[in-house]
């Protein structure tokens, strides 16, 4: 019986997609390319929105 964990295979398949969405070391290149379409101001706004979203998920902010 093959005792290799299933996730190993699925992980490999996930990372070896034919397109170049991921680098060899698993970095999501689509996010980098998207960020590079933004201006520095927009990148900073995105970061702040991300922080705000995470804090909302943690229940640290009450506004919607």
């Amino acid at each position, binding site marked *: 019986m093959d005792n290799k964990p299933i996730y190993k295979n699925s992980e490999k398949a996930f990372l070896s997609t034919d397109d170049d969405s991921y680098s060899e070391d698993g*970095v*999501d290149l689509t996010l*980098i390319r998207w960020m590079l379409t933004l201006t*520095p101001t927009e990148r900073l706004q995105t*970061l702040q929105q991300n*922080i705000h979203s995470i804090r909302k998920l943690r229940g640290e902010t009450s506004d919607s």
Partner: protein
Amino acid sequence: MKHPIPDFLEILSTLYEHKVDFIIVGGVCAVLHGAPVTTFDLDLVHSRSPDNLERLMSSLKKLGAYYRSRGEQRLTPRLSDISSPGHQLLMTAYGPLDLLGTIGIGHDYEDLLKHCITIEVGELRLNALDLQTLIEVKKETISEKDKAIIPILKRTLEEKSKQS
């Protein structure tokens, strides 16, 4: 204790208005370069020249800065604190601000200035560490958090190079 929602632009604007000489490093620097990472504090290396320290003290007062490790004590940074090569981990009215006298293996403002680019954020023209140097400095640190971000920074640099 309830902390304010970070507004990095407000902190940067206040420092800019006070003509403080500083370099953006760390996660916000990475984001400005286009790296898809998240950080909760603003890391800056400041010039420790006497004039700049005076300007920085004024802006810290306006930002309501205090040491975030001291709980409810609200201990405020002194001139002697920010003149040291150490790290001042502060909370302000607009979120966490880390003032770093030096980074990596002792790089200070003057060392890093020649490895900076100017990034325009709205009306502000800000000094940020170039991406290659940011990677080199991250490699010099022993923090696991810093090591984890290095592959993302390297790939961001590669993608930027392809576009230019």
